[in-house]
Protein backbone atom coordinates (compact mmCIF):
# COMPACT_ATOMS: atom_id res chain seq x y z
CA UNK A 1 0.00 0.00 0.00
CA UNK A 2 1.26 3.47 -0.91
CA UNK A 3 0.60 6.82 0.72
CA UNK A 4 1.42 10.30 -0.58
CA UNK A 5 2.32 12.74 2.21
CA UNK A 6 3.48 16.30 1.59
CA UNK A 7 4.45 15.45 -1.97
CA UNK A 8 6.43 12.32 -1.12
CA UNK A 9 5.25 8.77 -1.89
CA UNK A 10 5.72 6.19 0.87
CA UNK A 11 5.47 2.41 0.72
CA UNK A 12 3.61 1.32 3.86
CA UNK A 13 3.92 -1.73 6.06
CA UNK A 14 0.88 -0.87 8.21
CA UNK A 15 -2.37 -2.70 7.58
CA UNK A 16 -5.33 -0.95 5.93
CA UNK A 17 -7.29 -0.64 9.17
CA UNK A 18 -4.48 1.24 10.89
CA UNK A 19 -5.51 4.83 11.50
CA UNK A 20 -3.88 7.42 9.28
CA UNK A 21 -2.70 9.09 12.50
CA UNK A 22 -0.78 6.00 13.61
CA UNK A 23 0.74 5.58 10.14
CA UNK A 24 1.92 9.20 10.08
CA UNK A 25 3.32 9.23 13.60
CA UNK A 26 4.50 5.68 14.20
CA UNK A 27 5.53 4.45 10.77
CA UNK A 28 6.54 7.66 8.98
CA UNK A 29 7.71 9.73 11.94
CA UNK A 30 5.61 12.73 10.94
CA UNK A 31 4.63 14.03 14.35
CA UNK A 32 2.79 17.31 13.79
CA UNK A 33 -0.59 15.50 13.93
CA UNK A 34 -1.14 14.91 17.64
CA UNK A 35 -2.74 11.88 19.26
CA UNK A 36 -5.19 13.59 21.59
CA UNK A 37 -8.43 11.77 22.30
CA UNK A 38 -8.06 9.32 19.38
CA UNK A 39 -11.85 9.17 19.05
CA UNK A 40 -12.60 12.22 16.96
CA UNK A 41 -13.44 14.63 19.74
CA UNK A 42 -10.51 17.03 19.90
CA UNK A 43 -9.21 17.86 16.41
CA UNK A 44 -5.52 17.66 17.37
CA UNK A 45 -4.89 15.05 14.67
CA UNK A 46 -6.52 16.93 11.78
CA UNK A 47 -4.65 16.73 8.47
CA UNK A 48 -5.68 17.60 4.92
CA UNK A 49 -6.89 14.79 2.64
CA UNK A 50 -6.94 16.21 -0.88
CA UNK A 51 -7.25 19.65 0.72
CA UNK A 52 -10.13 18.75 3.04
CA UNK A 53 -9.56 18.76 6.82
CA UNK A 54 -10.09 15.29 8.26
CA UNK A 55 -9.49 13.60 11.60
CA UNK A 56 -6.58 11.27 10.91
CA UNK A 57 -7.43 9.19 13.99
CA UNK A 58 -10.78 8.24 12.43
CA UNK A 59 -9.53 7.49 8.94
CA UNK A 60 -8.38 3.95 8.16
CA UNK A 61 -5.34 4.35 5.96
CA UNK A 62 -6.84 1.83 3.54
CA UNK A 63 -9.58 4.35 2.74
CA UNK A 64 -7.13 7.08 1.73
CA UNK A 65 -6.36 5.56 -1.67
CA UNK A 66 -4.66 7.97 -4.06
CA UNK A 67 -5.50 11.06 -2.01
CA UNK A 68 -2.70 13.49 -1.11
CA UNK A 69 -2.09 14.00 2.61
CA UNK A 70 -0.84 17.37 3.85
CA UNK A 71 0.45 17.98 7.38
CA UNK A 72 2.04 21.04 9.00
CA UNK A 73 5.39 19.75 7.71
CA UNK A 74 4.03 20.37 4.21
CA UNK A 75 2.67 23.87 4.86
CA UNK A 76 5.87 25.89 4.98
CA UNK A 77 9.46 25.89 6.17
CA UNK A 78 11.02 27.76 9.11
CA UNK A 79 12.50 30.21 6.59
CA UNK A 80 9.33 30.51 4.57
CA UNK A 81 6.29 30.08 6.79
CA UNK A 82 2.84 29.70 5.28
CA UNK A 83 0.43 32.57 5.87
CA UNK A 84 -1.44 30.69 8.58
CA UNK A 85 1.80 29.92 10.41
CA UNK A 86 2.84 33.59 10.26
CA UNK A 87 -0.56 34.68 11.55
CA UNK A 88 -0.57 32.19 14.45
CA UNK A 89 2.91 33.46 15.41
CA UNK A 90 2.04 37.14 15.11
CA UNK A 91 -1.21 36.81 17.06
CA UNK A 92 0.22 34.49 19.72
CA UNK A 93 -2.43 31.95 18.81
CA UNK A 94 -0.55 29.08 20.44
CA UNK A 95 0.15 28.42 24.10
CA UNK A 96 1.08 24.81 24.86
CA UNK A 97 0.86 24.05 21.13
CA UNK A 98 -0.85 20.65 21.32
CA UNK A 99 -3.95 21.80 19.40
CA UNK A 100 -2.04 24.09 17.06
CA UNK A 101 -1.22 21.65 14.26
CA UNK A 102 -4.82 20.59 13.84
CA UNK A 103 -6.11 24.13 14.09
CA UNK A 104 -3.64 25.40 11.51
CA UNK A 105 -4.61 22.68 9.04
CA UNK A 106 -8.31 23.49 9.52
CA UNK A 107 -7.58 27.22 9.23
CA UNK A 108 -5.48 26.73 6.11
CA UNK A 109 -8.31 24.77 4.47
CA UNK A 110 -10.89 27.34 5.60
CA UNK A 111 -9.04 30.19 3.90
CA UNK A 112 -8.14 28.10 0.85
CA UNK A 113 -11.87 27.44 0.35
CA UNK A 114 -12.61 31.17 0.36
CA UNK A 115 -13.47 31.58 4.04
CA UNK A 116 -13.92 35.18 5.21
CA UNK A 117 -12.86 37.06 8.35
CA UNK A 118 -16.37 36.64 9.81
CA UNK A 119 -15.93 35.41 13.38
CA UNK A 120 -19.00 33.19 13.42
CA UNK A 121 -17.97 31.52 10.17
CA UNK A 122 -14.47 30.90 11.53
CA UNK A 123 -15.86 29.49 14.78
CA UNK A 124 -18.14 27.17 12.80
CA UNK A 125 -15.26 25.95 10.62
CA UNK A 126 -13.00 25.33 13.63
CA UNK A 127 -15.78 23.96 15.82
CA UNK A 128 -14.28 20.49 16.05
CA UNK A 129 -11.06 21.71 17.64
CA UNK A 130 -10.48 21.92 21.35
CA UNK A 131 -7.90 24.30 22.88
CA UNK A 132 -7.59 23.72 26.64
CA UNK A 133 -5.41 26.79 27.12
CA UNK A 134 -8.61 28.71 26.23
CA UNK A 135 -6.89 30.51 23.39
CA UNK A 136 -9.83 30.82 21.01
CA UNK A 137 -9.84 34.62 20.88
CA UNK A 138 -6.31 34.83 19.50
CA UNK A 139 -6.82 31.81 17.25
CA UNK A 140 -9.88 33.37 15.65
CA UNK A 141 -8.02 36.68 15.30
CA UNK A 142 -5.18 34.86 13.53
CA UNK A 143 -7.50 33.09 11.10
CA UNK A 144 -9.34 36.35 10.38
CA UNK A 145 -5.98 38.00 9.64
CA UNK A 146 -5.15 35.30 7.08
CA UNK A 147 -8.60 35.63 5.52
CA UNK A 148 -8.07 39.40 5.19
CA UNK A 149 -4.67 38.84 3.63
CA UNK A 150 -2.75 40.67 6.37
CA UNK A 151 1.02 40.57 6.11
CA UNK A 152 3.35 40.38 9.08
CA UNK A 153 6.91 41.33 9.95
CA UNK A 154 7.63 38.54 12.41
CA UNK A 155 11.00 39.99 13.42
CA UNK A 156 9.09 42.99 14.71
CA UNK A 157 6.45 40.79 16.35
CA UNK A 158 9.05 38.98 18.41
CA UNK A 159 11.16 41.97 19.38
CA UNK A 160 8.86 44.92 19.73
CA UNK A 161 8.02 46.11 23.27
CA UNK A 162 5.24 48.18 21.73
CA UNK A 163 3.47 45.35 19.99
CA UNK A 164 -0.23 45.88 19.89
CA UNK A 165 -1.33 42.32 19.34
CA UNK A 166 -0.72 41.17 22.93
CA UNK A 167 -2.07 43.64 25.40
CA UNK A 168 -0.16 44.45 28.55
CA UNK A 169 2.79 42.12 28.01
CA UNK A 170 6.28 43.64 27.83
Amino acid sequence: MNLAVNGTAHELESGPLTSLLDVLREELGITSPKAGCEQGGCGACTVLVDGEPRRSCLLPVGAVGEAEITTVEGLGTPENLAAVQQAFTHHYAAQCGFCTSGLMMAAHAYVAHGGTADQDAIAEALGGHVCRCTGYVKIIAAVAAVARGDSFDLATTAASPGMTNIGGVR
Partner: protein
Amino acid sequence: MASAPEMVFPTSPADAAAAFGDGSGVTVVAGGTIVMPEISYGRLEPAKAIMLTQAGLAGVTRDGTTVTVGAATPIAELVDLPAPLGPCAANIADREIRGQATLGGNVCAGAGHDAPRGDLQGALLAVGATARSAGAGGERSEPLDDFLANRGGRLLLDVSFEEPAAGGFAALDRPHTHDYTAMAVSAARAADGTVRVAATGAGTHGQRLLSAEVKADDLAAAGDAALADVTPHDDALASAWYRSKTLPVLVRRALTQLKETS
Protein backbone atom coordinates in the same frame (compact mmCIF):
# COMPACT_ATOMS: atom_id res chain seq x y z
CA MET B 1 -4.65 -6.74 16.05
CA ALA B 2 -4.29 -10.48 16.55
CA SER B 3 -4.13 -11.29 12.85
CA ALA B 4 -4.57 -9.31 9.68
CA PRO B 5 -8.26 -8.99 8.82
CA GLU B 6 -9.63 -10.02 5.46
CA MET B 7 -10.20 -6.76 3.59
CA VAL B 8 -12.83 -6.29 0.89
CA PHE B 9 -13.10 -3.17 -1.28
CA PRO B 10 -16.34 -3.61 -3.25
CA THR B 11 -16.76 -1.39 -6.31
CA SER B 12 -20.54 -1.68 -6.71
CA PRO B 13 -23.57 -2.03 -4.43
CA ALA B 14 -24.05 -5.61 -5.66
CA ASP B 15 -20.43 -6.44 -4.78
CA ALA B 16 -20.92 -4.89 -1.35
CA ALA B 17 -24.07 -6.93 -0.73
CA ALA B 18 -22.32 -10.13 -1.88
CA ALA B 19 -19.33 -9.48 0.38
CA PHE B 20 -21.65 -8.70 3.30
CA GLY B 21 -23.62 -11.93 2.95
CA ASP B 22 -25.68 -12.39 6.10
CA GLY B 23 -23.39 -10.03 7.98
CA SER B 24 -21.94 -12.58 10.38
CA GLY B 25 -18.34 -11.78 11.29
CA VAL B 26 -18.34 -8.70 9.07
CA THR B 27 -17.29 -5.19 10.10
CA VAL B 28 -18.56 -2.48 7.76
CA VAL B 29 -16.31 0.57 7.42
CA ALA B 30 -17.56 3.68 5.60
CA GLY B 31 -16.59 7.01 7.17
CA GLY B 32 -14.90 5.22 10.05
CA THR B 33 -15.90 7.80 12.65
CA ILE B 34 -17.64 5.28 14.92
CA VAL B 35 -15.75 2.09 14.18
CA MET B 36 -12.17 3.40 14.09
CA PRO B 37 -11.92 4.24 17.82
CA GLU B 38 -13.24 0.75 18.56
CA ILE B 39 -10.44 -0.73 16.46
CA SER B 40 -7.70 1.64 17.62
CA TYR B 41 -8.52 1.07 21.28
CA GLY B 42 -8.56 -2.70 20.73
CA ARG B 43 -12.23 -3.18 21.59
CA LEU B 44 -12.90 -4.59 18.13
CA GLU B 45 -10.69 -6.91 16.10
CA PRO B 46 -12.40 -7.37 12.74
CA ALA B 47 -12.04 -10.76 11.09
CA LYS B 48 -13.41 -9.36 7.83
CA ALA B 49 -13.81 -5.68 7.00
CA ILE B 50 -15.78 -4.25 4.08
CA MET B 51 -14.66 -0.78 3.03
CA LEU B 52 -17.56 1.10 1.43
CA THR B 53 -15.54 4.06 0.12
CA GLN B 54 -15.71 2.95 -3.53
CA ALA B 55 -18.92 0.88 -3.40
CA GLY B 56 -21.09 3.30 -5.37
CA LEU B 57 -23.32 3.88 -2.36
CA ALA B 58 -22.70 7.63 -1.99
CA GLY B 59 -24.83 10.45 -3.32
CA VAL B 60 -28.16 12.24 -3.11
CA THR B 61 -30.53 11.76 -6.05
CA ARG B 62 -33.93 13.24 -6.79
CA ASP B 63 -36.74 11.74 -8.85
CA GLY B 64 -39.62 14.20 -8.81
CA THR B 65 -40.36 14.73 -5.14
CA THR B 66 -38.62 11.52 -4.05
CA VAL B 67 -35.19 11.96 -2.49
CA THR B 68 -32.83 8.99 -2.21
CA VAL B 69 -29.67 9.15 -0.13
CA GLY B 70 -27.02 6.45 -0.48
CA ALA B 71 -25.78 4.91 2.75
CA ALA B 72 -22.17 6.02 2.18
CA THR B 73 -23.14 9.66 1.55
CA PRO B 74 -21.18 12.02 3.83
CA ILE B 75 -23.42 13.87 6.26
CA ALA B 76 -22.02 17.16 4.91
CA GLU B 77 -23.98 16.53 1.69
CA LEU B 78 -27.27 16.50 3.60
CA VAL B 79 -27.10 19.92 5.23
CA ASP B 80 -28.89 21.69 2.35
CA LEU B 81 -31.84 19.29 2.32
CA PRO B 82 -35.18 20.68 3.54
CA ALA B 83 -36.04 20.60 7.26
CA PRO B 84 -35.99 18.56 9.34
CA LEU B 85 -33.19 16.61 7.64
CA GLY B 86 -30.94 19.53 6.64
CA PRO B 87 -30.87 21.28 10.02
CA CYS B 88 -30.52 17.91 11.74
CA ALA B 89 -27.48 17.06 9.58
CA ALA B 90 -25.96 20.50 10.17
CA ASN B 91 -26.27 19.96 13.93
CA ILE B 92 -24.18 16.77 13.90
CA ALA B 93 -20.71 17.05 15.44
CA ASP B 94 -18.55 19.50 13.46
CA ARG B 95 -17.64 20.31 9.87
CA GLU B 96 -14.77 17.82 9.66
CA ILE B 97 -16.76 14.93 11.09
CA ARG B 98 -19.70 15.76 8.80
CA GLY B 99 -17.36 15.54 5.82
CA GLN B 100 -16.26 12.06 6.80
CA ALA B 101 -19.14 10.39 8.67
CA THR B 102 -21.84 8.81 6.53
CA LEU B 103 -25.61 8.57 6.67
CA GLY B 104 -25.42 4.78 6.95
CA GLY B 105 -23.08 4.81 9.91
CA ASN B 106 -25.21 7.37 11.69
CA VAL B 107 -28.50 5.56 11.05
CA CYS B 108 -27.14 2.11 11.91
CA ALA B 109 -25.13 3.15 14.98
CA GLY B 110 -25.92 1.19 18.07
CA ALA B 111 -26.58 2.95 21.36
CA GLY B 112 -23.49 4.91 22.42
CA HIS B 113 -21.31 4.08 25.43
CA ASP B 114 -22.29 7.26 27.23
CA ALA B 115 -24.19 9.45 24.77
CA PRO B 116 -26.98 8.97 22.24
CA ARG B 117 -26.11 8.13 18.64
CA GLY B 118 -28.09 8.08 15.44
CA ASP B 119 -28.91 11.80 15.16
CA LEU B 120 -30.47 11.29 11.71
CA GLN B 121 -32.87 8.58 12.87
CA GLY B 122 -35.36 11.10 14.27
CA ALA B 123 -35.36 13.31 11.18
CA LEU B 124 -35.72 10.33 8.84
CA LEU B 125 -38.58 8.89 10.92
CA ALA B 126 -40.33 12.26 10.74
CA VAL B 127 -40.25 12.24 6.93
CA GLY B 128 -41.46 8.64 6.84
CA ALA B 129 -38.28 7.33 5.20
CA THR B 130 -37.97 3.91 3.62
CA ALA B 131 -34.79 1.89 4.21
CA ARG B 132 -33.40 -0.39 1.50
CA SER B 133 -31.00 -3.00 2.78
CA ALA B 134 -29.21 -6.21 1.81
CA GLY B 135 -28.59 -9.30 3.91
CA ALA B 136 -29.84 -12.84 4.44
CA GLY B 137 -32.80 -13.43 2.12
CA GLY B 138 -31.66 -10.71 -0.25
CA GLU B 139 -32.68 -7.12 -0.69
CA ARG B 140 -35.50 -5.61 1.33
CA SER B 141 -37.28 -2.24 1.48
CA GLU B 142 -39.24 -1.34 4.61
CA PRO B 143 -40.25 1.64 6.74
CA LEU B 144 -37.29 2.95 8.73
CA ASP B 145 -39.14 2.15 12.00
CA ASP B 146 -39.12 -1.53 11.07
CA PHE B 147 -35.50 -1.43 9.90
CA LEU B 148 -34.33 0.18 13.16
CA ALA B 149 -36.15 -2.42 15.22
CA ASN B 150 -34.50 -5.30 13.35
CA ARG B 151 -31.31 -4.12 11.67
CA GLY B 152 -28.92 -6.83 12.81
CA GLY B 153 -27.45 -8.66 9.82
CA ARG B 154 -28.53 -5.97 7.37
CA LEU B 155 -26.36 -3.72 5.18
CA LEU B 156 -28.16 -0.42 4.61
CA LEU B 157 -27.98 0.54 0.93
CA ASP B 158 -29.98 3.76 0.90
CA VAL B 159 -32.91 5.63 2.41
CA SER B 160 -35.60 7.40 0.41
CA PHE B 161 -38.44 9.74 1.30
CA GLU B 162 -40.92 12.17 -0.18
CA GLU B 163 -39.91 15.80 0.28
CA PRO B 164 -42.09 17.10 3.11
CA ALA B 165 -44.40 20.07 2.65
CA ALA B 166 -43.01 21.56 5.86
CA GLY B 167 -40.49 20.62 8.49
CA GLY B 168 -39.11 21.62 11.88
CA PHE B 169 -36.09 20.65 13.96
CA ALA B 170 -35.21 21.55 17.55
CA ALA B 171 -32.24 20.29 19.56
CA LEU B 172 -30.81 20.81 23.00
CA ASP B 173 -27.92 23.20 22.60
CA ARG B 174 -24.44 21.89 23.31
CA PRO B 175 -20.94 23.27 23.81
CA HIS B 176 -18.81 22.93 20.71
CA THR B 177 -16.61 20.43 22.53
CA HIS B 178 -19.45 17.88 22.74
CA ASP B 179 -19.95 15.98 19.50
CA TYR B 180 -23.20 14.35 20.44
CA THR B 181 -26.61 15.97 20.69
CA ALA B 182 -28.24 15.06 24.00
CA MET B 183 -31.75 15.16 22.53
CA ALA B 184 -33.51 16.50 19.43
CA VAL B 185 -37.01 16.50 17.97
CA SER B 186 -37.91 16.48 14.27
CA ALA B 187 -41.35 17.22 12.83
CA ALA B 188 -42.58 17.05 9.25
CA ARG B 189 -45.85 17.52 7.42
CA ALA B 190 -46.21 15.28 4.38
CA ALA B 191 -47.85 16.47 1.16
CA ASP B 192 -51.07 14.65 2.19
CA GLY B 193 -51.15 16.59 5.50
CA THR B 194 -49.88 13.77 7.73
CA VAL B 195 -47.76 15.14 10.59
CA ARG B 196 -44.99 12.95 12.00
CA VAL B 197 -42.92 13.80 15.07
CA ALA B 198 -39.86 11.85 16.17
CA ALA B 199 -37.08 12.16 18.73
CA THR B 200 -33.40 11.26 18.92
CA GLY B 201 -31.86 10.90 22.37
CA ALA B 202 -35.13 10.27 24.22
CA GLY B 203 -34.44 6.53 24.17
CA THR B 204 -31.78 4.12 22.97
CA HIS B 205 -32.59 4.87 19.35
CA GLY B 206 -34.73 7.29 17.38
CA GLN B 207 -38.46 6.86 17.83
CA ARG B 208 -41.78 8.31 16.69
CA LEU B 209 -43.71 10.38 19.22
CA LEU B 210 -47.13 9.03 18.29
CA SER B 211 -48.99 10.63 21.20
CA ALA B 212 -47.61 14.04 20.24
CA GLU B 213 -48.59 13.52 16.59
CA VAL B 214 -52.29 13.12 17.34
CA LYS B 215 -52.27 16.42 19.26
CA ALA B 216 -50.00 18.27 16.82
CA ASP B 217 -52.50 21.13 16.39
CA ASP B 218 -52.24 22.01 20.11
CA LEU B 219 -48.59 22.85 20.82
CA ALA B 220 -48.75 22.61 24.62
CA ALA B 221 -50.78 19.43 24.61
CA ALA B 222 -48.51 17.83 22.02
CA GLY B 223 -45.40 18.61 24.06
CA ASP B 224 -46.82 17.11 27.23
CA ALA B 225 -48.25 14.11 25.39
CA ALA B 226 -44.82 13.22 24.02
CA LEU B 227 -43.73 12.11 27.50
CA ALA B 228 -46.08 9.14 27.20
CA ASP B 229 -44.07 7.84 24.25
CA VAL B 230 -40.61 7.77 25.82
CA THR B 231 -38.60 6.33 28.69
CA PRO B 232 -35.92 8.99 29.26
CA HIS B 233 -32.54 7.72 30.44
CA ASP B 234 -29.48 9.03 32.27
CA ASP B 235 -26.20 9.29 30.40
CA ALA B 236 -23.08 11.45 30.37
CA LEU B 237 -24.83 14.32 28.58
CA ALA B 238 -28.14 14.65 30.41
CA SER B 239 -30.22 13.12 33.17
CA ALA B 240 -33.55 11.42 32.64
CA TRP B 241 -35.09 14.24 34.69
CA TYR B 242 -33.65 16.89 32.38
CA ARG B 243 -34.76 15.02 29.30
CA SER B 244 -38.30 14.70 30.63
CA LYS B 245 -38.41 18.44 31.37
CA THR B 246 -37.04 19.51 27.98
CA LEU B 247 -38.71 17.04 25.60
CA PRO B 248 -42.04 18.94 25.67
CA VAL B 249 -40.15 22.17 24.93
CA LEU B 250 -38.40 20.67 21.91
CA VAL B 251 -41.67 19.21 20.62
CA ARG B 252 -43.32 22.63 20.86
CA ARG B 253 -40.40 24.32 19.10
CA ALA B 254 -40.31 21.81 16.25
CA LEU B 255 -44.08 22.03 15.77
CA THR B 256 -43.93 25.84 15.89
CA GLN B 257 -41.44 25.79 13.01
CA LEU B 258 -43.78 23.45 11.17
CA LYS B 259 -46.61 25.97 11.47
CA GLU B 260 -44.39 28.88 10.45
CA THR B 261 -43.14 27.16 7.30
CA SER B 262 -46.51 25.95 6.06
